[in-house]
């Protein structure tokens, strides 16, 4: 038995199923996505997309301007907590949360692997918001805040859906109050569905 007396702290049982396989050891995998998983202090999501699929790209809003952090091959990018960001063709809204997001992209043969890791700090409240910005002038068109709304994975996959539906309810609600541009309908978190391979990817 392990001696815990010196440290005075209980040692937890190792958790060996906190693993997530992006691909097999040779880098091969069938296209598709894993559902979000909570792995301790982080939430994790894995996507495996055919390279022919339009790439998923991290976009961030900074003072009404859009920065797209994209390159071919390998990429690891951190989205700072509080920054409005979206992953193009994965979800059609801008997400703001109190958790950092680490986005990893690895291109391997005819497959592009993506890994999202949300979190890192302890004691986060789980505050989230979704927003939409005018693609013509950068003005914020709509925003809905969710206080203490839980972990990022569950929020993106489930709780954000109501806000998306509300935004889509009327064309007027999607119109930019500054310049009049009408935002196209939003779409919820939409990972690749290999069963619907013929369906066109989300347009934005």
């Amino acid at each position, binding site marked *: 038995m392990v001696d815990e007396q010196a440290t005075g702290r209980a040692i937890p049982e190792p958790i060996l199923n*906190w693993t997530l*396989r992006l691909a097999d050891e040779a880098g091969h995998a069938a296209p598709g996505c894993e559902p979000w998983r909570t*792995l301790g202090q*982080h939430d994790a999501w894995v996507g495996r997309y055919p390279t022919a699929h339009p790439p998923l790209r991290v976009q961030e809003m900074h003072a009404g*301007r*859009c920065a797209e952090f994209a390159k071919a091959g390998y990429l690891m990018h951190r989205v700072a907590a509080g920054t409005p960001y979206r992953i193009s063709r994965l979800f059609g809204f801008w997400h703001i949360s109190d958790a950092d997001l680490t986005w990893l992209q690895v291109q391997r043969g005819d497959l592009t692997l993506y890994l999202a890791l949300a979190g890192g700090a302890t004691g986060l409240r789980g505050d989230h918001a979704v927003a939409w910005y005018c693609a013509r002038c950068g003005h914020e068109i709509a925003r809905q805040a969710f206080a203490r709304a839980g972990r990022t994975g569950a929020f993106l996959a489930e709780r954000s859906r109501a806000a998306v539906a509300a935004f889509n309810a009327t064309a007027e609600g999607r119109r930019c109050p500054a310049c009049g541009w009408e935002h196209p309908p939003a779409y919820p978190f939409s990972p690749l569905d290999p069963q619907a391979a013929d369906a066109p990817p989300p347009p934005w």
Partner: protein
Amino acid sequence: MFAAIQVDEPLERIAEDWDFLSDRVLSHLTTFKPVGQNIYGVRRRHIGAGQVTDLRKGSITEHWEMGPSGLVYWELRPFELHVTAAGTPHHVSHNFGFWHINDMDELYLPIPGDSPAEPGHSIVLMGTPRGDECDRFAWYCERCLTMLHEYVCHTGAEGFKAFYKAEHEAVAQYNSDPAHRRCPECGTLNPPGYCWNVNRDGELERQGRARW
């Protein structure tokens, strides 16, 4: 869709180190660098099926975790993310010569290179400790797992910059007297400790690194 409002300035002006895997940023992550809520380390290593090799340390494939019932062994596997839970003493053979106990989860992800000859990316990520969250350096008897020595670094209060100094002090303290390495329960003389950084190895530390 957002081409009309795309930022004009270079991305480096928006976020200086926006791609951790670019050659420029990688050189800052060969140890660990706190960035926001996480601490990142990315090393170029040869990663193959069942083997992760550091050019200076040799094989660092073997990972050990300690639980209430004893030791658990696992191996780094290409493309597999593994999470070592907060509070779990863990040790990577020939990589660092102590049991690391942190209050933050630690995530490992080895990504092999594009060809077997090319080094891959060994990614380690852990939460940034805050407040009273700590890092501990501990030694347990290799025969009976009795705790021999522990050094606490208050990284949450002092910042992660305190980690490597504390690691060095912990190893030096442990190695300073063979009595620290002698198990009070079973009498086993345990191998010396050593730091993560090979450059800190003296003769005693080299012996320790070769052994465990």
